[in-house]
């Protein structure tokens, strides 16, 4: 159907979020770049994942609590499987997005693994140590 064509969906999202879409795209690009940087540095992913998961869970819980109110409704208005499914998918989706956004920052902040490969010294830095 025409409404579900990618171009139509993009137009509707553009009308819905306006400039926020660019902010979201920039955030995603930044998160990706930081992720690549973290991968190069050999950071402590496991610890970062735990932290990001906890943050994502908090965000998801907040969204699940606030979502009906955001639509001028209450939890009492949710009726049937469809409503609860959409409510859950939106809450978990936002939580997952928040976790993914914070993961590389957290990973970089927590520092490198003890067994991380030593980084190649920079030329200028090497000469100054002599």
């Amino acid at each position: 159907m025409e409404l579900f064509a990618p171009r139509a969906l993009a137009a509707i999202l553009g009308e819905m979020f306006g400039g926020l879409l660019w902010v979201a795209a920039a955030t995603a690009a930044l998160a990706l770049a930081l992720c690549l940087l973290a991968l190069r540095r050999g950071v402590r992913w496991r610890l970062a994942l735990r932290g990001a998961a906890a943050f994502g869970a908090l965000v998801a819980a907040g969204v699940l609590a606030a979502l009906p109110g955001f639509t001028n409704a209450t939890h009492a208005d949710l009726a049937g499987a469809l409503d609860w499914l959409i409510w859950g998918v939106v809450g978990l989706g936002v939580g997952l997005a928040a976790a993914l956004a914070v993961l590389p920052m957290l990973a970089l902040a927590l520092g490198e693994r003890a067994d991380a490969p030593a980084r190649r010294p920079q030329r200028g830095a090497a000469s100054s140590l002599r």
Partner: protein
Amino acid sequence: MPGPALAPLNRRDLVRLAVAAGVAAPVAGAARAQPLRTPARVVIAGAGAAGLTMASKLSRLLEGARITLIGARTAHWYQPGFTMVASGVWPATKVVSETADYIAPGVTWVRADVAAFEPEAKRVVATDGSTHPYDALVVATGCTLEWSRIEGMDPTLIGREGIASVYAGPEGAAATWRVLQRFMETGGVALHGRPPTEMKCAGAPLKGALLWDARLREAGTRGRAELHYFTPFRNLFAVAPVHAKVLELFAARDIAFAYDHTLTAVDPAARTATFRTPDGPKTLRYDYLHVVPPMAAPQPVRESALAWGSGPFAADGWVEVNRDTLQHPRFPEVFAVGDVAGVPRGKTAASVKTQAPVAAANLVSFLAGEQLEAAYNGYTSCPLITRPGRAMLVEFDYEGRLTPTFPFIDPLAEHWVPWVMKDRLLGPIYRAMLHGSI
């Protein structure tokens, strides 16, 4: 089918031009790969939802055409949001924007209304005195609210004497909420209903009755209020399954209703409303009266040869069109879209969204000298709000068949998801429609 008189090229030249540009003979009903090159003069009468959408669509489908949009109103009203304002969910400012924000590039906007249609001469006269000859005309003037057909009724009464109406613009919707708030405190008798004419969004009065019942329950004053709904017809909604569902809802909410009742007079001082019934006039006292005025085509349409001459759409002067192609049968260069089109149903923003691509594609085919392939099936949608937070997404066609866009949503079940669509999603879809993006 007679061809259009195009200046300076004739239809055959245009077809050759189109072939040369590689745009002739598109797949039936499909969008053109490239715009049609044409010097045609296209006039769009009306700068509301239908007119703006047609201007946006045609500006994408035609290259070199002179598209003129005629409409005086500088503020654009998002009319599907009026019930949200009238029930205190949205502020009135949320349904008002600028017409200029939706005018497509290259479209000339004449800030005047249409004073006269002269289809025999293929021109339109505007209220500023300017005349606009055309090779193709889109009539999208919307409809007029005929308050004067109710004796004693005047739109300036809305917001006073217990009189409300969501149809009187954003201010009328906001005034309706104020009147309702007072009624929620005092209680009493509330009268709702619909007019005997064709009307825009026939679900709105039903939504009103249900929403205001919900508001009274929230306020804890429902026990002090009597709600009544009156219809001139023998049903509450013209689509049978929806009628059955509304009967069920009215029974559950203790909303009384009566058929064969047409509001004919209002006495604001005495707070009485008079209805025409098969048993003669019936006068009822009210504390809250929601007036839905009779609706008709604007006078310049009614007085022109464009209006239906006979049949169910003649009395109120709706534009005669083929209900499938939206093309005028006697003036083939004329198409009608939106409220003014004399077709069954089809007087909602959702109808415009479905009609506009059909009318635009057929108008382009007409200019190209091709067969008209696109067809409108009568699609109309009504997010029937049953209380703040819940709605039913009712969609149907000419035949009264339910045509759900989302097969996983039961159109006759009250859910939060359709409410979310009404509250958050339909506005962006509407704006995308005005911009011609969908």
